[in-house]
């Protein structure tokens, strides 16, 4: 390899490992646990007494979940490391997934959820990091770095020898008349964070929101849970970042862009506030000004409120100037100005598209998100 001047570094990596996980589950997860429930008082011989009953179904077969990860990567540096980077490809399979809210029939169990090893999930993805120094002269340097990540998540199985559900619902969001509804579904063949929603079909002649039922007909009434349909996914197809650093004489300038592409956000916050009939006693979003006063269905959570979550954010920009005084006591003084969260480009109608996209119920904005602040800092730092 020494004879190749163009290439400074080229490294191929490959790895495989299996790890177990029981994090988040305590020593009693597999046992029949007795305790008091929220409403557990009764009258016994004239005395108010605590009843003690099962609060957890036992599962003697509970075992660790395990994750097998295979990874292939290339690290490289070319043109005297002016361009370097890495490319990684991974396949991660988790089996015997532990879920402590697996729904079970109350005709079979006395607690409606069960802690069980059910199913498996597969993540495959590519991560690319590129670093470059496009310009480097005595007085001017430009360094830039981009990273991309793409992950494909799919539930491969949800059953074990005991349980054979073809799917289960998650993301119970509440809302008027929707307390028993769920907005996402965990289903083999689909990713975590798959939305399962009523399908909005516009307004009727009276301005009332209409929805499509499972049989294809249109209704202006609140649909049933069986009318929900799969409507998109909260997982982005691409997560990216771009950093730049410029140095010119004593000046330095850096900025970082980052963003995601291709994900959906359920704007349940907007749905919940979108109630024109209640406008005379509660604040409404400007969105609601365009709604008919007759629309008694306006607040229902549906795919009408499923929005693109793509965004580009200027996360940080800093301009600095460094003086090197001719004294021994102070080596350098840097004056700088930094702005954080300077702008976001997005079509998302909520306060901020950068909501939680991890966990079991990603991509939901349900009056539980405080927007990021924008901040400016002007500072001086000195080295002694």
């Amino acid at each position, binding site marked *: 390899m020494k004879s190749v001047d163009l290439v400074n570094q080229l490294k191929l990596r490959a790895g495989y490992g299996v790890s177990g996980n029981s994090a988040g589950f305590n020593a*009693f997860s597999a*046992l*029949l*646990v*007795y*305790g008091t*429930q929220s*409403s*557990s*008082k*009764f*009258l*016994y*011989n*004239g005395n*108010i*007494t*605590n*009843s*003690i*009953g*099962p609060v957890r179904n*036992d599962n003697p077969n509970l075992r660790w979940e395990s994750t097998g990860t295979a990874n292939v990567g290339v690290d490289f540096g070319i043109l005297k490391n002016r361009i370097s980077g890495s490319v990684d490809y991974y396949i991660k399979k988790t089996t015997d997934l532990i879920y402590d809210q697996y*729904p*079970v*029939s*109350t*005709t*079979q*169990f*006395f*607690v*409606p959820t069960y802690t069980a090893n059910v199913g498996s999930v597969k993540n495959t993805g590519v991560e690319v990091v590129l670093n470059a120094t496009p310009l480097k002269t005595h007085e001017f340097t430009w360094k830039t770095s981009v990273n991309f990540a793409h992950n494909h998540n799919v539930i491969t199985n949800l059953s074990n020898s005991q349980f054979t*559900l073809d799917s289960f619902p998650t993301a119970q969001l509440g809302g*008027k*008349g*929707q*307390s*028993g*509804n769920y907005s996402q579904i965990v289903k083999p063949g689909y990713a975590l964070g798959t939305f399962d929603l009523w399908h909005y079909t516009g307004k009727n002649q009276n301005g009332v929101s209409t929805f499509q039922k499972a049989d294809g007909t249109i209704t202006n009434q*609140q649909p*049933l*849970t*069986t009318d929900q349909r799969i409507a998109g996914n909260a997982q982005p197809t691409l997560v990216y970042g771009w950093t730049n650093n410029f140095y010119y004489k004593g000046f330095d300038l850096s900025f970082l862009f980052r963003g995601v592409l291709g994900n959906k956000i359920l704007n349940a916050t907007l749905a919940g506030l979108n*109630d024109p*009939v*209640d406008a005379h*006693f509660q604040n409404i979003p400007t969105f609601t000004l365009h709604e008919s*006063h*007759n629309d*008694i269905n306006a607040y229902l959570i549906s795919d009408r409120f499923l929005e693109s979550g793509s965004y580009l954010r200027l996360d940080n920009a800093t301009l600095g100037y460094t003086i090197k005084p001719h004294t021994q006591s102070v080596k350098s003084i840097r004056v700088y100005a930094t702005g954080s969260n300077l702008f976001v480009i997005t079509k998302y109608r909520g306060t901020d598209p950068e909501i939680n996209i991890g966990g079991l119920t990603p991509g939901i904005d349900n009056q539980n998100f405080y927007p990021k602040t924008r901040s400016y800092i002007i500072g001086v730092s000195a080295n002694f």
Partner: protein
Amino acid sequence: MKRTPILVFLAAILFGSIACTKLKVPVESQYVSSNFPTTANDYAALFGTMYSNLSSNFAVTYWRMQELSTDEAILPARDGNFDDGGQYRQMHYHTWNYDHPYVTGIWQWGFGGINNCNRLITLTVQSKADTVTKTANLAEIRAMRALYYFFMMDLYGNVPLITNFPVATLPSTQPRAKVFQFIESELLAIAQQLPSKTNSLATNTLQYGRPTKAMAFALLMKLYLNADVYTGGATRYNDVVAMADSIQKNSNYSLDARYRDIFLPNNGPQINETIFAIPYDQQIPGNQFTRFGFYYYLVNAYGFNVGESIAMSTTPEFYARFNIPGDFRTKTWLVGPQFYPDGTGGFTNQPVYYPGTTTQIVINPTLTLIPPKPMDLGNTIASQAEGIRSIKYYPDPTTIQATRLNGNDVPVFRLADVYLMKAEAILRGAAATPVNGVLQTPGYLVNLLRTRAGAQACPNVTLDTLLDERARELSWEGWRRNDLIRFGQFEKSYPLPPSDPLTMNTDVTRRLFPIPISEIKLNSNLVQNPGY
């Protein structure tokens, strides 16, 4: 440095030996199956789950399914408040579906209760208690299981029959007639092993809120009176009479002198006519009749100061039955100009004014719709004062804002109902029988209750007057839906003035509630009821 490999080797052995040994530490910090139940107190606390579960949903959610679906109770919205996605309006117009929160919640309540009873049976059989204790315990559990099954059979009709725990395979739906048979055979098998009401308050206190012989007989009466509805086959009116007479053999049951005492906040084992009641208390949550059914601006006049919800009332059509001269039961409703209560169930001449005014509070019986919100009366002071309020479960002055509970125990079975059921069975063809030498005709039985209430006697009892007498005597006790279905009047609608845009779904399939869809998804052996 030479020692290092040896140390590593020793460490590996040590680590390996720990990792390979099965960890067995007895659980001490939590109740689990290895350390609970062991003592008699453990078993008492364990059996308590049958009762704490029962009280948790009986007087609110279960009650609403049985009452808001009839003319006896209505919960109209007040400018969007108490619309709650239409859950109350769907009850009124019979437009509920398999997603309705009560349909789902009460199914889980009932079958959770049934599976709990089955588990208690298994634990009791395995326990080291003596035979006498075991027999008594098993009878108690089976009676409670029969009660839960009755609730499920009455509401949902065709439900699975689960009699053991653990349940190996997902149970299938059974026809209502088969569930009826099971409940009947269970009650007949254990009735004689249950305790009887005594003349000792101490014994009655121990038995209070728990199954007795008379509770089993009264539950059998409900089965037999509705046998035609439940099984679609033979009527069992003679059995209704036989069970009524079995209850009356115990002279410790008698009508209390004052109707209102049965439902006061301090009611309990001292009430002579209670056969089975669900105890409630400020510490035992689940009775919220005052919270949902009282009129907020009257609280100070009744001796407490808690912000109640302005919501639930009865319909004017139902109230119209309270028209008998002298009838104390009429005073369990608040309507018209309001006066301070006199402390004994009546009223003084002192008007109750709206706070800071000299305007007397007047409760208007008519529920007038204000469009466009559905089944909504608007939320002005005037519209808040619409709807006849019930003070049958008399406001509990010890209520606090944080919980808004009533301490009044809620009767499930009481002697007055036994009389009325016997009277009805006779009107429907059973032979009248004597008790203690007195021939109990329908007229005799109904007038026992009329006399106690201070009401004019009923000269001629027919099935129609009997249904109205049940309405007066048993209002808001959770039986109206059951009664209306038996009389074929469940589909009579009660539109609200001036012109109700919503209409009742009068399909008779509404006589059964649907199986919750969430349960069908989890148990594919369940079959949905017709019409849903």
